[in-house]
């Protein structure tokens, strides 16, 4: 699906920030949110890293942008927990309001329905029993994908022509893995695109490299 998380090349965000030194967590709650989310994406909700990224991509743009990075993680953790019915919708909000003295009723804890899913190995690297379909130096085209579900083909790289720069080892396909429809491991290619192919003849000259899953590519 196309979502607020897919930001490549979008405009209107203003200038990039000048880097400064900063601690990993600017405030204590950011560390708590980080740890809660890491635990939620696996152990607690029974989901996985790709499901977490898909949860981020399904957030309302306000929920994605307003609370900052670890706020976005918190919102995605809550979404994963309600997806797995570990929590009822609104449970977090109700508890937070009670904590600050509001007279709010909390929803009952539902019966969890965690996905029936087991990873075949840790991480996302897998083996496949066939070689890569494309080789280094080969000209490839990205498909015009607009799936309802998750995808790792960014909008700005759809229907573009590039050259295979490197063949990477097979990885789990997030599109299906995120929704527990199978790991579908496949080769990943680092594809080089000239900037003019992406942004037209007046683009700044540079080369853009991105990882593209095999099923996103065609030779035409």
């Amino acid at each position, binding site marked *: 699906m196309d979502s607020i998380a897919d930001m*490549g090349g979008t405009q209107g965000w203003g200038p990039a920030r000048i880097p400064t030194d*900063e601690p990993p967590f600017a405030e204590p709650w950011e560390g708590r949110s980080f740890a809660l989310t890491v635990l939620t994406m696996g152990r607690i909700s029974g989901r996985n890293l790709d499901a977490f990224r898909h949860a981020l991509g399904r957030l309302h743009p306000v929920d994605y942008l307003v609370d900052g990075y670890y706020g976005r993680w*918190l919102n995605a953790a809550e979404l994963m927990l309600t997806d797995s019915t570990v929590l009822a919708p609104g449970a977090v909000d109700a508890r937070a*309001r009670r904590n600050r003295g509001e007279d709010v009723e909390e929803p009952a804890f539902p019966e969890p329905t965690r996905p029936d899913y087991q990873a075949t190995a840790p991480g996302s690297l897998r083996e496949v029993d066939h070689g890569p379909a494309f080789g280094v130096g080969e000209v490839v085209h990205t498909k015009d994908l607009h799936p309802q579900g998750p995808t*790792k083909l960014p909008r700005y790289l759809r229907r573009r022509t590039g050259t295979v720069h490197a063949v990477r080892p097979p990885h789990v396909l997030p599109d299906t893995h995120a929704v527990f429809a199978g790991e579908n491991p496949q080769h990943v290619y680092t594809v080089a695109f000239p900037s003019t192919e992406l942004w037209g003849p007046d683009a700044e000259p540079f080369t853009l490299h991105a990882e593209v899953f095999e099923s996103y590519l065609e030779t035409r």
Partner: protein
Amino acid sequence: MTDAPSGRLSPALRTEALEQLLVERELVDPAVMDAFITTYERDVGPLNGARVVARAWTDPEYRAWLLQDGTAAIKDLGYGGPQGEHMVVLEQTEDVHHVVVCTLCSCYPWPVLGLPPSWYKDPAYRAGMVRTPRRTLREMGLEVPEGREIQVWDSSAEVRYLVLPRRPAGTEEWDAEALAALVTRDAMVGVAEVAAP
């Protein structure tokens, strides 16, 4: 924009509430959370990557291995695990400047650089770096010479990149430990150079 987030509770309040709910259900152990937080505050950070870079600057064989098989060479120094399962190292040269971004989320090589800084996660960086990288780098304080080609790497799958910066002049006699102290996180993403001492 849709409805303004008025009446919206702060993420700090909601984080506290979520932790309470999960602890009450015995789904979360606060001590486990503390251990995660401490690990990423104290142990996993850009100093790991700086040690990799300093080793490559002082050991030509290691440098060659690092550029050929980043995952194995980095693991040899003890760094691996989540978000570092397949590492690729990009070498800055006189002719080419590399810079890394993740436009879909904020993928980042945790084992060598720690958790990403806020600018890396910011929409302006994620949006701009794949469209106007020279301008975006300039906004961040790095002027890339006109003759130097820019290569942008969008880590849109699970490959994680570490940039090997150019060793600054005047450090020929320095050992790896002293060199590591010079290497910055920003240089290992490609938004800065390592300054001469």
